[in-house]
């Protein structure tokens, strides 16, 4: 913090230091003093319309907004005097005068700022004699978002997000006074790849997501941080799942993926592609070892790994460098890639180690990168070269080990099928079921990134460690365990402990 000027002030009798130009609210938060607020969001410009963050500042005749007042040397701030408390009560009374008693059916209940603040600063006995305004309760505003105008407290976080972050400006506040309401500008629906953030930033339940709507309650969810594996940016995400396991048929395990906070990478936002990542954790997963595309009862993954090891051993050591081919992918963690290098390149001396992956998409200039595999930099750091697979080399192999279902991204199905038919022993290690399953001798089910711990290096070279965000689905193991066991079966002495 050298260089930036620091300012000393007193908040609630406590000496606090803050960067010059910071708001009183930020300074208080940094000192562990919570000031209630709705419209203030650290990722957006200050608006100061909710009037919830009023504090008493010595020398000012009236209460001041802590979110928009800049700290000054020697400032004396009080956040919990009777005057401040009374003001908060009055502000909340006005907000709640028009707020429906929807908590039982509101998705936001349990993580709602209005509920939290009411618990601390509420005027519990209502004195509203007038009839509440009735407004529309279910307006689709595009991208699976539903607007409830009764619940809206007009904090304009969503309006500011769409103007300042995505710069698409679909939403606005229309009409005046009690008639003010949130609406779509020119009737154009919300249509941008960051729309899911509106649900996260809405401090009440005014904007909810169709995908999550009514599925569960916020307090049942176990929230654990992870790193998004859907592009090379490596945004911080929070995987929200139910802990009780196994589940009844049709029940969801991961209910949603929301934005985590990482100022160095994504700030407070993630894209909708990352949010949809919840589907790949739950849907289309392999749960048991397959042989020629059919479930093989009684064959657990150690048995399948023994099968791979036997196939590799059947190739004479002198012919292995050309006879055994491996296809890796950049979704493997750096630890697993290091293990793969030790095993396939240093240990077996293979010449044909390829990398398959998703086709690059379109970068949107905000967070989403064109590269759609999360650990491309990690591949280089591990000392591997990201060569795309060559069909002739695959077809010429006597043993083929493929990690991930990405070969279909590189070759069309017919040619790939013919090439694989020429390989006498072929094994697939994959988290998801796919068209490749029946082409391989055996398919091993493995974890998705959210189910394992490891390190990804993002497109800017930032190495990010993450830990397990969801308990693994039944019957799956991390790729690292497969690699370590394969190495042990082949008599190679490489870091077994690193795999776990």
């Amino acid at each position, binding site marked *: 913090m050298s260089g930036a000027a620091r300012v000393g002030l007193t908040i609630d009798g406590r000496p606090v230091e803050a960067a010059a130009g910071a708001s009183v609210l930020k300074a208080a938060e940094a000192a562990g003093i919570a000031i209630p607020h709705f419209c203030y969001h650290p990722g957006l410009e200050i608006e100061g319309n909710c009037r919830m963050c009023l504090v008493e500042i010595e020398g000012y005749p009236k209460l001041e907004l802590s979110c928009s007042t800049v700290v000054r040397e020697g400032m004396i701030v009080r956040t919990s005097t009777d005057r401040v408390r009374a003001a908060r009560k009055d502000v909340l009374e006005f907000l709640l005068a028009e707020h429906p008693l929807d908590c039982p059916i509101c998705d936001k209940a349990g993580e709602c700022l209005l509920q939290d603040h009411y618990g601390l600063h509420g005027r519990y006995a209502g004195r509203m004699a007038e009839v509440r305004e009735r407004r529309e309760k279910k307006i689709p505003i595009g991208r699976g978002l539903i607007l409830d105008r009764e619940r809206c407290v007009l904090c304009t976080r969503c309006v500011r997000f769409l103007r300042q972050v995505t710069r698409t400006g679909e939403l606005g506040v229309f009409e005046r006074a009690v008639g003010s309401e949130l609406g779509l500008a020119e009737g154009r629906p919300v249509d941008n790849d960051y729309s899911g953030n509106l649900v996260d930033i809405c401090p009440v339940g005014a904007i909810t997501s169709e995908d999550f709507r009514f599925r*569960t309650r916020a*307090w049942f969810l176990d929230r654990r941080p992870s790193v998004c594996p859907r592009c090379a940016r490596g945004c911080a995400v929070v995987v929200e799942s139910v802990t009780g396991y196994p589940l009844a048929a049709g029940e969801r395990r991961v209910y949603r993926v929301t934005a985590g906070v990482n100022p160095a990478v994504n700030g407070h936002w993630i894209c909708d592609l990352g949010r949809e990542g919840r589907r790949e954790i739950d849907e289309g997963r392999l749960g048991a070892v397959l042989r020629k595309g059919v479930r093989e009862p009684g064959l657990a993954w150690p048995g399948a790994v023994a099968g791979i090891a036997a196939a590799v051993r059947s190739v004479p050591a002198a012919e292995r460098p050309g006879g055994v081919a491996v296809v890796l992918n950049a979704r493997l963690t750096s630890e697993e890639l290091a293990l793969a290098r030790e095993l396939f390149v240093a240990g077996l001396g293979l010449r044909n180690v390829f990398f398959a992956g998703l086709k690059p998409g379109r970068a949107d200039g905000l967070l989403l990168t064109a590269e759609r595999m999360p650990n491309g930099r990690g591949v280089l750091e591990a000392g591997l070269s990201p060569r795309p697979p060559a069909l002739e080399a695959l077809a010429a192999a006597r043993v083929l080990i493929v990690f991930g279902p990405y070969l279909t991204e590189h070759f069309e199905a017919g040619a790939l099928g013919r090439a694989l038919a020429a390989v006498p022993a072929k094994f697939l290690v994959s988290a998801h079921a796919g068209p490749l399953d029946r082409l391989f001798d055996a398919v091993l089910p493995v974890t998705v990134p959210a189910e394992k711990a490891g390190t990804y290096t993002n497109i800017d070279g930032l190495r990010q460690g993450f830990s397990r965000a969801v308990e693994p689905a039944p019957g799956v193991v991390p790729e690292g365990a497969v690699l370590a066991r394969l190495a042990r079966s082949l008599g190679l002495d490489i870091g077994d402990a690193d795999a776990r």
Partner: protein
Amino acid sequence: MSGAWTAVKEILRGTGITARHFFVNMGLHTLGLFGVRTKRRGAVTIQYPEVRKPLAPRHRSLHRLRPRGDGRPSCVACMLCVTVCPAECITVEAAEDPDPEVQKAPARFVVDLDRCCFCGFCVEACPVDAIRMDTGEIRLASTERADFARRLDRP
């Protein structure tokens, strides 16, 4: 040897107590038949299931979901009963309701009576007074496990 003697002694003592209750009660009931008022009455046995004791108004019996005007349950699927249930016996699946005034309704509301401890917390937690335990139904025995998972959202 002394252990066996103690056992015989205890059996005889127990039989004596049972016999005493039998003769005392028989004597009291016989006196009652002849209209003699005694200070103590004979023990009362209810001949269940032919004869039933009335249940207290606050007695907690099998759950029910109170219907709305149109017969559908008034439950809004807020899952507070699921949250509060100490036996974790309630499963609620919510669905969108076509009525905009209702919005959220249960697609499935199951109480697993195998696990329910009849504490009545669900009744207390319900914000819309939808679940009640006032059916008076206490004969819940069954030989089929599936019978204990009761769907309350449909009759």
